[in-house]
C-alpha cells in the first residue's frame, strides 16, 4: 500500500497520495518516511514497514527525523531501479508488523526482475525478502541438467573463465605499468 509520485532527492516532494488505511490501523499516528530510486519517484512508507530493512531502520534511528524533515529529505537509492524499489516497498507494506511466513506467494514472478531484486534487497538488508528471493532463484533451475543450468544462470565455461582471468591479469599488468610510469614522471 505505497504511493508514488515524481520528485527529487534534493527538493521537497509534493504530497504523496496514500492508499486507505486498513480497519486495524494503529491508534497512535504512525510516522512515515520517503524513499526514491533511480527514477526519482518518491514512495511514502510507514516506519513499521521500513523496519524490515536493516539499512533504512539504522538510518532512521541515527537521523531522528520529524515527518516534515523526512518528507523534505527522501532517502535516495540511486542504485535501485524505480520498479524494483516499488516491489520492495510493496513487500514491506504487505508484511508490516506480521511474522513472515515460511513461503511467500506474493513474491514477483518476473524472472527478469529477480536478479535486480536480489541485489536491491541485499543492499537494503531485508533478510526475509532476501531469503524468499534466493529460494526463487534456486527454483529457476529445479530439476534442470548442468547444460540447462549453465544457460539459465549464464555460467561461463572453464575456457571462458580462463580467458577472462588472463584478460584481467593483462589489464592489471598494464595498469601497474602505467602507474609506475606515472610515478617515475612525477619523480622527474
Amino acid at each position, binding site marked *: 500500500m505505497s504511493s508514488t509520485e515524481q520528485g527529487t532527492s534534493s527538493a521537497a516532494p509534493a504530497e504523496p497520495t496514500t492508499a486507505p488505511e486498513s480497519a486495524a490501523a494503529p491508534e497512535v499516528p504512525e510516522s512515515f518516511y520517503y524513499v526514491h530510486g533511480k527514477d526519482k519517484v518518491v514512495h511514502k512508507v510507514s516506519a513499521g514497514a521500513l523496519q524490515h530493512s536493516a539499512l533504512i531502520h539504522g538510518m532512521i534511528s541515527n537521523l531522528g527525523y520529524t515527518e516534515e524533515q523526512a518528507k523534505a529529505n527522501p532517502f535516495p537509492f540511486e542504485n535501485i531501479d524505480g520498479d524494483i524499489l516499488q516491489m520492495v516497498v510493496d513487500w514491506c507494506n504487505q508484511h508490516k508488523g506480521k511474522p513472515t511466513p515460511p513461503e511467500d506467494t506474493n513474491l514477483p514472478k518476473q524472472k*527478469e526482475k529477480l536478479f535486480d531484486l536480489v541485489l536491491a534487497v*541485499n543492499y537494503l538488508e531485508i533478510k526475509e525478502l532476501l*531469503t524468499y528471493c534466493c*529460494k526463487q532463484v*534456486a527454483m529457476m533451475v529445479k*530439476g534442470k541438467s*548442468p547444460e540447462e543450468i549453465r544457460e539459465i*544462470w549464464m*555460467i561461463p565455461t572453464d575456457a571462458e573463465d580462463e580467458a577472462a582471468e588472463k584478460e584481467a591479469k593483462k589489464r592489471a599488468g598494464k595498469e601497474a605499468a602505467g602507474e609506475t610510469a606515472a610515478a617515475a614522471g612525477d619523480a622527474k
Partner: protein
Amino acid sequence: MPIRLLSLPEKDLQYTLNCMDIGDLIAFSLCSKRTKNLAKFSNRRIGPIVADVYQNYICLEIRPTEVRRVQDDPDPLFMYLDFSNPQIKLDRKKGIEAWRKEGFAHHDWIAHFLSIFKGSLIDQLGINDVCSISHLDIVKRIIPKFRKLKIMELCSTELTKMTFLKLAPIAEEVEIANKPFGNDISQLLSYNLKALTFSDWRTPLELNNVIITEKELNRFLKLWMKSNHRFYRPKYIKLYLPLIDDINQEELFKGIKYRDMDYQYRLTRADGKELLITISWSSVDFMVL
C-alpha cells in the same frame, strides 16, 4: 530469461545454493570448475554414500542429512554408473536423465561427488548376487577405497570368495551375509580389518564336534595374556555354550590373575590391555577394553 548468477554477492549466491536440493546442486557443480568450488564451499551435508553393485552397473545412493523419518523428508538421490558407458544416469522423478562430462571416466564421478560433499570415501559397497565376477576389478578401479564391504545373502559361494579376496583388502570392515567358507573362517581373519561380521542368521557359524571346556577356555585366556595378537585379533567374541551354569571358575582362571566383578571378570595384560569376560547362563563373552 537468464540471469548472471555468479555476479550475485557471495552471501546471496551461497544462500541460493543452500536452497537447492542435492540433485540440483550436483548438476550446478558440473557446469565448470568455478561452480564445483562454489558447490564445495556451500558445505552441504549429506548422509554416508552407499554404493550397490548389480549386473552391469553401480547404484549410488546419496541421502540428505535432514532426514527425520517423516513424510516430508527429502527422497534420496539414486545415480547409476553403467560399466559400459562413462555417463551417469539419475532418476529425479521426471524420467531417467543421462549426464556426460567431457573427460570424465567412471571413477571421476565418484571423486567429484566425494569432493563436493567433502567426503573421504564411499561408506558402504554392497555386492549383490547378480554382480558378475568379471566386473569386480572394474568395481575396484571405480571405487578404490570404501569403509565397509557388504556381501549380500544370495551371492554364490564363488562370488563371495572372489569378492572377499579382491575387495576385502581395501575395506575397513566386511560383513558377509552367507557362509562361503563353511565354518573355517581362519583365512578371513588374516586381513587387517577393523571388523568382520557374519550376518547369516539362517545358518549361523557353528563349531561342530568341538568340545569347549574350562580347560580350552583357560588356554585361550593364557594365550591372550601372552599378548599373542595373531591368536586373538577381534575386539569381541561371544561363545554360545550349553550347560554353562556349572562352569568351574577355578579351572577357568587357573594360573591367571583376575578381578572378580560379579559375573564379570577382568584380566589385565602386561602391556596394559584389559579383557572383560562375562559369563551368563548360555554364553561367555570376551571383550577387549
